[in-house]
């Protein structure tokens, strides 16, 4: 069994093992992070002593029901929220240090849930330029960055459109381009697909997967769609401010019962595999793709 796949109750989550490499400092490192929105009610923290590491180039999905603390966790990754207790380090920089907070935000870009509420400018290319403009990048260099970023999300032809005339998926791609233009190391999607229709979700996810694969961009994808988590390198499950399970999608989704108890579903195909396995068919209950189930049922 995969060493990183053992579920544990809130312990340290190691990055996937890379036997050939010497252990390097992970890109993002959370140590015993606790966050209370209300200082008077420390008994109900939104995050409760969370330990998490995200390695460079990884694609991590964080899943959990509403109020599980997954969005609070996301906002800790780029210093939009600071830990009440514990420590968050991004590439070795402590997010509580006001001197490096902008460097942290440049390295960890964030795409939010509502596509309309994160686009600042009235023209697509102007909006993509917003980040580099804030960083004080020189005018000609911003132009190249904007062009590159729009090409990377496949929105080049829309460069002079008005954002409100784009579809939800296109708006989110523009938002992603706006982050890419800042040359980040990690992209955090804070439920960025939850307000999109299925085709918009595919559009955004395919873009992000390609960026992860081809550009080596680290991705932290926060979602409540289990199918989306199924293609990640690693899934982290949150419940009431704690990490209750983590590992490869296969090991996490094999625990269907446990996930259902905290209000989560497994991907439909995994659920079907589970039912078939329970009915005595030769199907393993941890399958994630339709093809895998087909192969199991009709071996050629």
């Amino acid at each position: 069994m995969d060493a990183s796949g053992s579920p544990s109750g809130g312990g340290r989550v190691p990055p996937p093992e890379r036997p050939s490499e010497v252990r390097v400092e992970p890109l993002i490192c959370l140590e015993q992070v606790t966050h209370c929105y209300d200082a008077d009610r420390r008994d109900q923290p939104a995050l409760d002593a969370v330990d998490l590491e995200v390695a460079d180039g990884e694609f991590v999905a964080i899943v959990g029901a509403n109020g599980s603390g997954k969005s609070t966790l996301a906002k800790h990754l780029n210093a939009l929220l600071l830990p009440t207790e514990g420590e968050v380090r991004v590439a070795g920089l402590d997010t509580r240090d006001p001197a490096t907070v902008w460097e942290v935000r440049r390295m960890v870009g964030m795409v939010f849930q509502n596509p309309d509420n994160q686009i600042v400018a009235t023209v697509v290319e102007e909006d993509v330029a917003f980040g580099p403009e804030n960083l004080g990048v020189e005018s000609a260099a911003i132009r190249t960055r904007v062009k590159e970023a729009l090409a990377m999300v496949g929105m080049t032809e829309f460069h002079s459109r008005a954002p409100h005339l784009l579809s939800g998926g296109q708006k989110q791609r523009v938002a992603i381009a706006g982050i890419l233009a800042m040359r980040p190391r990690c992209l955090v999607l804070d439920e960025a697909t939850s307000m999109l229709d299925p085709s918009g979700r595919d559009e955004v996810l395919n873009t992000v997967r390609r960026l992860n694969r081809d550009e080596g961009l680290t991705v932290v994808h926060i979602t409540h769609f289990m199918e989306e988590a199924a293609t990640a390198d690693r899934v982290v499950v949150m419940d009431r401010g704690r990490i209750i399970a983590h590992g490869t999608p296969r090991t996490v989704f094999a625990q269907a019962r446990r996930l259902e108890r905290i209000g989560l579903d497994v991907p439909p195909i995994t659920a079907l595999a589970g039912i078939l396995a329970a009915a005595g068919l030769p199907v393993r209950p941890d399958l994630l793709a339709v093809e895998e189930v087909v192969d199991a049922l009709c071996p050629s």
Partner: protein
Amino acid sequence: MLRDITIGQYLARDTAVHRLDPRTKIISTMLFMVLLFLVPHLAGYAFLGSFAAAVVILAGIPPRMLLRSIRSLAFILTLTFLLQLFMTPGEPLFALGPLVATREGFTMGAFMISRLTLLIVMTSLLTLTTSPIALTDGLEYLLRPFRRFGLPAHELAMMMTIALRFIPTLLEEADKIMKAQMARGADFRSGNLLRRARSLIPLLVPLFVSAFRRADELALAMEARCYRGGEGRTRMKQLAFAPRDGIAFTTVAAMFLGVLFLRVWS
């Protein structure tokens, strides 16, 4: 139906006037406005009027668009004219009951009408030929020197940009809320003015609540993208004067000198 409202009346064309730097257009319009109050006699207005007509033709603006903006202010124009006509003391022309129209009043009225009409035409020309973004950029540049007196030039420009960005979004949302309320029996269209104003409450309250939520989220998104005010910020599109801006400035300056000369002469 709310979507039909267009804010700003920019008419996208590719003419020399459209291509002028927004700063050139703003400054020229302001100079022209000063000129309007310096011109000593009606012949001067004919001159300024023909200049305005030339710009209208050059910019390819259909005259009916300008007529429309003049018509919307027709009431004020008429009122001004009548006030001048009857209130200026001088040689009586005719009497309407206790009111006496005077020759001087007529001249003053004609002056005022010419002034206001040209004022409307030139300011409309500015907004018709300059996109709201260019206008905002130009204003930010021009207001920059006043920063040392505490004028938040960058912040004002950013506010205008965000307002422009969110107008269509909020109109769309207003439309949606209106339909939702109508589906539940709300009536926005009948009753007297007071009744209709009151029926807007179920539209405005949710709209405001959502606008505040949007503002909150936008602020967070801007912060996540390293926005920290105008200090140390660069721009992708930098305004640059071209030779045609020089020509425009020279023309306006020549007119200005001409009018000053006329004024001193007469």
